[in-house]
């Protein structure tokens, strides 16, 4: 197929550009602070583009359009949650975190609470979170590439892993900053340009068979459509439809004509072929809004849907600030108030991006309704251009969106790899540049091996639970660490263990049980509403129990975190520990003279 080559070309181009930009951006990376935090020299506009580039993962580039396409107005809360996480980050974390002078989350924990044990625990959580997030990124890249180019699924993930490793090994945070900023604009262009053109195509499209989006009827097939069901689905039939089918429906083999009555739910097995005539109403997966009127109206599912939205907002508003790859970008700001400016720019960039996703969602409802049958709503962005423009130009646009999707996988993975490598190299290894490179290779090898070995691990749910884990561990640590002066190391440790334990426990429950209904299950699937408050409570309670171990320098640390930048309280702990001169990474004698942390020195001499 022609489209395959175009899309593959787009992906390869995106990959080549990424490596090129990374090599250019990382050419002056020499010291440990360069690799860890780009020596804290990134200005707000560039940093905001990099943060937005990293944050707009495939879940945003493909997922937001897909969610609004299936869920309609209710789906609008998902991007609100994604953007709102940054608002919470701005309000509670951005400037004080930067002013603390920390270079990783574990380092923040030690800077604030002076406990090496807590630092170790945080290291473990960062690595766990990073890998938990990386596996679905690699899997998603593989699946996406496979669905529209026909290459085997392992190839896409491997390509992303290798590209990211090359960039991070070569230039660390300096390289990744430029790469992510570049990828934000690539993604924006890859979404905005087709959205704009396709909208004009829609305005000039006077074919009558497309149903208005406000009718209380399901979308309709514009032409005779053949659907190969690749994973088993449950379909709700909101308007009776006649079709031809070959395969297994409701457990019985079918070959030939079939009639599905209004209001029935059909289980269609893997490998079934469905052929709908032109003009037939579209049955949809049970998670989607079945007819257009309920698609247009928010909360058409009543209270259960409202509950779903609340737990989503809980996870995203509090989880975003706990994600290590999000936090690692905030250390790169020159000072606290530029961290705030950066976050404000991020809100503009991310919000603007989501508006184009909505155009894709609406048009997909009209032009690719067959995705409602297969439930592959994430493919909407990739398939819409060719569905609307069946010529070389549509294929060019499809190649562009494919390149954008791949950029999304690349940028998010690079942020994750940098954050995991930064923590591994400074907490497990002595933190020389050589160690950072070694840690990078390790940090990307483990998840890609996992992704290749367990291709059927539930990727979509994994991301939601990882966000929950971040919300129940690092979010309370940061918020209480920044605003509550009586926090103690023991309290923080217990809070992380409690919140993390609840999330891990419910994850195990989800993986081990098969039932998917009932409110217990829905609560376990989204444990944030319980685990986050529990973690806050545990931190407070166990801090109250151990009032004597409130760190002695708490007043100074609070002053450092909250005093205006121009008073000059901030001490960059990376510079203190590793020095900031370009020097050969193996020259220990020089570095010890610039290193103030005795603990670090002892480790280096070993």
């Amino acid at each position, binding site marked *: 197929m022609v489209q395959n080559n175009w899309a593959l070309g787009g992906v390869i181009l995106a990959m080549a550009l990424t490596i090129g930009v990374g090599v250019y951006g990382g050419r002056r990376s020499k010291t440990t602070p360069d690799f860890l935090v780009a020596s*804290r020299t990134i*200005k707000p506009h560039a940093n905001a583009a990099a943060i937005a580039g990293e944050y707009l993962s495939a879940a945003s580039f493909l997922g937001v359009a897909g969610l*609004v396409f299936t869920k309609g*107005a209710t789906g*609008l*809360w998902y991007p*609100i949650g994604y*953007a*709102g996480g940054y*608002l*919470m980050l*701005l*309000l*509670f974390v951005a*400037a004080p975190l930067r002013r603390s*002078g920390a270079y990783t989350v574990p380092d923040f924990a030690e800077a604030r609470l002076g406990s090496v044990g807590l630092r170790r625990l945080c290291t473990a959580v960062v690595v766990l979170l990073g890998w938990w997030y990386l596996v679905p990124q690699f899997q998603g890249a593989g699946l996406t590439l496979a669905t529209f180019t026909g290459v085997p699924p392992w190839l896409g993930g491997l390509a992303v892993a290798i590209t990211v490793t090359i960039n991070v090994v070569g230039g660390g945070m300096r390289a990744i900053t430029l790469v992510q900023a570049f990828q934000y604009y690539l993604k924006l262009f890859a979404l905005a340009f087709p959205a704009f053109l396709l909208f004009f195509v829609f305005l000039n499209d006077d074919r009558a068979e497309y149903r208005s989006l406000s009718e209380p009827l399901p979308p309709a097939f514009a032409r005779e459509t053949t659907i190969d069901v690749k994973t088993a689905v449950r379909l709700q039939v909101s308007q009776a439809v006649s079709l031809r089918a070959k395969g297994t429906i409701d457990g019985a083999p079918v070959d030939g004509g079939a009639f599905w009555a209004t209001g029935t739910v059909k289980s269609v097995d893997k490998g079934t072929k469905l052929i709908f005539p032109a003009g037939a109403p579209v049955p949809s997966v049970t998670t989607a809004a079945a007819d257009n009127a309920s698609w*247009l*109206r*928010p*909360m*058409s599912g*009543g209270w259960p*849907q*409202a509950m779903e*939205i*609340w737990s989503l*907002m809980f996870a995203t*508003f509090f989880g975003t600030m706990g994600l290590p790859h999000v936090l690692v970008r905030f250390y790169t700001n*020159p*000072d*606290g*108030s*530029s961290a*705030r*400016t950066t*976050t*404000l720019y991020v*809100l*503009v960039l991310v*919000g*603007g991006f*989501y*508006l184009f996703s*909505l155009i894709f969602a609406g048009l997909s409802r009209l032009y690719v309704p067959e995705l409602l049958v297969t439930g592959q709503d994430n493919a909407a962005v990739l398939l819409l251009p060719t569905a609307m423009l069946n010529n070389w130009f549509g294929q060019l646009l499809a190649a562009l969106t494919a390149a954008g999707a791949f950029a999304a996988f690349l940028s998010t993975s690079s942020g994750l790899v940098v954050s995991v490598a930064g923590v591994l190299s400074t907490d497990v290894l002595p933190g020389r540049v050589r160690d950072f490179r070694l840690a990078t290779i390790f940090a990307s090898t483990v998840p890609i091996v996992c992704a290749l070995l367990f291709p059927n691990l539930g990727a979509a749910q994994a991301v939601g639970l990882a966000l929950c884990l971040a919300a129940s561990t690092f979010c309370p640590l940061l918020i209480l660490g920044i*605003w509550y*002066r009586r926090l103690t190391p023991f309290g923080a440790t217990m809070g992380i263990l409690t919140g993390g334990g609840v999330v891990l426990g419910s994850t195990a429950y989800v993986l081990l049980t098969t039932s998917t209904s009932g409110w217990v299950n829905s609560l376990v699937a989204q444990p944030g509403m319980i685990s986050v408050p529990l973690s806050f409570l545990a931190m407070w309670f166990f801090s109250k129990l151990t009032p004597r171990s409130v760190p002695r320098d708490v*007043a*100074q640390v*609070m*002053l450092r975190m*909250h*005093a*205006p*930048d*121009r*008073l*000059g*309280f*901030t001490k960059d702990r990376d*510079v203190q520990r590793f020095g900031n001169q370009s020097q050969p990474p193996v020259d220990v004698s020089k570095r010890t003279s610039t290193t103030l942390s005795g603990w670090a020195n002892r480790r280096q001499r070993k």
Partner: protein
Amino acid sequence: MSFPHGQDPLEGTGPGGQEHTRNGHGGPGHSAEEEPTYPLRGKRRVKVVLAERRGARRILRPMAQLEGQDTGIAENVVKELVRRQLKIALALAALVLALYAGLPVLFVLVPEIGEYVVFGIRLPWLLVGGLAYPFMVGIGAIYNRAVDRNEAKFANQYTGMVED
């Protein structure tokens, strides 16, 4: 002053009492070099600082003072600042959360609201899909201005405190 014995070219002129001459000569010379620059530097910082971006590199005298003996004062002043900053953050967060967690309730209880059309767009799509983003940016901007004002106040209070 770490000149090796008798190697300093300036010292050679002294006939005797080398130790004394070096001290007598080097002492004023030292202060003549350092004394005028120190207060000048301090003043320059206080004035230009708002425009400076590289906060991390500067080491100010106030820091040494407050981080050393004066922590008692600092503690109280900073407590006040932290309380004010937290109040702003909590108020704005509560506003945003109440709005976006409250809208679903409204839409469940009064579904007809979802059917209103404003400027050719359904109300929920306009509110949640479109205006939400400028709204959040606006909240962020309000926050940044408010905390900056608090910080400026703190800085003035503080520099006054240090200079007294």
